[in-house]
């Protein structure tokens, strides 16, 4: 029997009797990272990295959560299990499972570039590699983070000079904190929506260094913070809460902003191309470096990407999962 199998509840390890990122309630779940489509409620017991744990506790409430450090090896039944950095968001992991010499890696979501916040991605040798393909098309190639930082700061400075508030829409867990490290606090104050500030506080408590932010709650008077940039989840852009800040421009930070059509529909005034997922060259280099022959493609352009890998000589197949649904696709 294979070390990992695919069931209607999720990716399953018979030798260790556990699931990885299951989408139905199971007794034991290993979690790659805290995003909603990977860490769901209702599991009997959870195992995740120590860095991912605080956010998961905040999101899922009272859960039975055990933690492991990157690289620490656990024996679970007949399976040797370890977590390795995926570079996606702080604490995100690829999960390595070894049973009788057969090695699988379930990579969850990942990116190759060092974002300066998450523990950088490390390739893990394996026979079977489960990869995402959110941006699995050759049209996706990310610009340098420093270049995007310059674009965002220029835009912010222009807004500030014109007396406008700069609203930047982004995913609350991971992307928001990465953007915080890229912003130039000399331009003005950084305000945050409550959903983002919660995550900021958790990360600061666990020792992650983030610049100073001000929670933009109901009592805040926008006039007290001229030249501000407001970080908010996409759903809050244009809401009644956002409108009380007066004259504003909105920007949106996501890998989807690489496509002009989506940029024009979603971005409001500006779209910034920055993603916590691997771009096309990133996916290909990650897959090559595993040395795996068998590739399983999950959320994204699965059919196209698997066909390409097959033509390039891999034994690739599409895996039907419930990853990559809801908000993540917009904010990826």
């Amino acid at each position, binding site marked *: 029997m294979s070390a990992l199998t695919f069931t209607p509840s999720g990716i399953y390890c018979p030798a260790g009797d556990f699931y990885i990122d299951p989408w139905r309630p199971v007794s034991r779940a290993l979690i790659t990272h805290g995003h909603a489509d990977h860490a769901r409620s209702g599991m009997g017991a959870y195992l995740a990295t120590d860095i991912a744990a605080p956010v998961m506790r905040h999101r899922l409430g009272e859960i039975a959560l055990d933690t492991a450090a990157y690289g620490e090896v656990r024996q679970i039944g007949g399976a040797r299990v370890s977590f390795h950095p995926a570079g996606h968001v702080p604490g995100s992991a690829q999960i390595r499972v070894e049973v009788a010499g057969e090695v699988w890696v379930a990579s969850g979501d990942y990116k190759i570039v060092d974002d300066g916040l998450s523990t950088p991605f490390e390739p893990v040798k394996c026979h079977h590699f489960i990869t995402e393909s959110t941006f699995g*098309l*050759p*049209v*996706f*190639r990310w610009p340098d983070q420093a270049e995007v930082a310059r674009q965002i700061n220029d835009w912010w400075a222009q807004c500030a000079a014109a007396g406008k508030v700069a609203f930047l829409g982004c995913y609350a867990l991971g992307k928001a904190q990465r953007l915080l490290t890229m912003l130039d606090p000399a331009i003005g104050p950084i305000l945050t929506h409550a959903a983002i500030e919660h995550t900021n506080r958790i990360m600061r408590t666990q020792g992650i260094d983030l610049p100073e932010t001000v929670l933009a709650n109901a009592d805040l008077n926008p006039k007290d913070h001229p030249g501000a940039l407001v970080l908010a989840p996409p759903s809050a852009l244009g809401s009644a809460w956002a409108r009380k800040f007066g004259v504003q421009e909105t920007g949106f930070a996501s890998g*989807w902003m*690489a*496509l*002009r*059509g*989506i*940029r*024009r*529909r979603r971005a409001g*005034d*500006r779209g910034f191309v920055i993603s916590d997922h691997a771009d096309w060259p990133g996916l290909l280099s990650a897959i090559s470096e595993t040395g795996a022959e068998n590739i399983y493609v999950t959320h994204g*352009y699965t*059919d*196209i990407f698997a066909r*390409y890998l097959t*033509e390039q000589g891999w034994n690739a197949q599409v895996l039907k999962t419930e990853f990559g*649904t*809801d908000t993540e*696709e*917009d904010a990826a």
Partner: protein
Amino acid sequence: MKRFAGLFNAIDQSTKTTVKVAALAEYFHEATEQDRIWTIAIFSGRRPKRAVTTTRLREWAAEVAGIPLWLFEDAYPIVGDLAETIALVLPPAETVSDHGLSYWIDMLRALPQVEEDARKQAVLDAWNSLDPTQRFLFNKLITGGFRIGVSQKLMTRALARATGRDEPEMAHRLMGDWDPAQVTWQALIEAEDPAANASRPYPFYLAYALDAAPDDLGPPVAWQAEWKWDGIRGQLIVRAGEHYVWSRGEELMTDRFPELARARDFIPDGTVLDGELLAWGDMAPQNFNALQKRIGRKTVPRKLLQEAPVILYAYDLLEWQGEDLRHNPLADRRAILEDLCMGLPPDAPVKLSPTIDFDSWVALADIRTAAREAQAEGLMLKRKISPYLTGRKKGDWWKWKLDPLTIDAVMIYAQSGHGRRANLFTDFTFAVWNGNDLVPFTKAYSGLTDAEFRQITAWVKKNTLERFGPVRSVTPHHVFEIAFEGIQASPRHKSGVALRFPRMARWRQDKPVQEANSLADLNEMLEIYG
């Protein structure tokens, strides 16, 4: 190319007309004469002769990107634009170029004369020296179709601002057959032009939609009712022995409708008429499909001129004997208009759009229900004492349109949107019941909110039955109310009907799939309204 790319970015990133006009006006101040002329040419739909086929472009792009052609072809519908797909798949440029827009255009214009190998090398060298935005624009110069949110009108306004001249004059100057490779800025924009004054139209007066019955408008006797025609709103100007036809978009369409030239034989100089451009049958307007064949054609084949002759169905008189009548009451203007039209021979390309007699709002509501039979979209109500105002103003003119036709249909295919909706399923095919079968009869892709599109997208992903390229067949489950403006027999369609302006009016989450309408229901509508 850098300056042109900067202009493009400024326009593309903004939805605000003022920002776009300012960016264009600034560009017209700064750019070289050749770049300015080519920019005007490009934004008004002119481009250099195509030097390379899109087939070759795709092949070369896939080759340089090191990907199989099928992968390029699969990515293209997701991106939604060929020029952009090429710009994105290519590896980053290895060199930098300082050349301006007209340099690249001259290079492309020279390409048809060289061998294919040299042509390919020239395109590849260009790709390798331009950043992604510049590459996208370079590709657009080859493929055409610069749809970047700059209308002719917006560009005209920017030019007017940059040159200190007025808009209608600019609009007129940009019409016709000028060649960007030959013309000078002086000749195109600045030289004295006596024809400009003669051609100048009046701004159109536009009506607001009436959202309830007109009972609140006061006594019916103060109002004039007309059919609201389903054509193109137009102004016919006869001055100084010439005639000019303007559309509501202030586009000069004189050459599109050559039959209107005969108006000069019957209508004296110093006359401006407001009315509807329509395809005329023997005694009455033809339906919109007939006019549709004429729209977008710059030259009209003789056969089409006979099948779908265009007239101006006149309903207002703005200038008479060289005098601006717009401040006179409608009733007075109408009286002169009626006299004028009375004297026209039956084959004149101008006819009088009749008024409708009615003595109560209830009676008028009754008349309105017959609008479809009259090839009209509804009624127009105009206050008899009203002057001819400028733009959309509330109070004196109202349009009272028919409610759309509707039918409840089942979604059976879904396709992701193009361009700005590439990651959502937005294009759906709908079917009605025929016994136990579902017969597709229309596509629709608008009418839902973004939130609804996201919701249906998540559902489609989980309920896909089969994939055919970008199209997915889905479990028949969701019922949508499809609204449309007209229905016609169409042997090309499996269902035998074609709808006009179909859109999703409502997502009927309350309706089980069995309760959707049937083909018999559609045929009944065809019988009544077709």
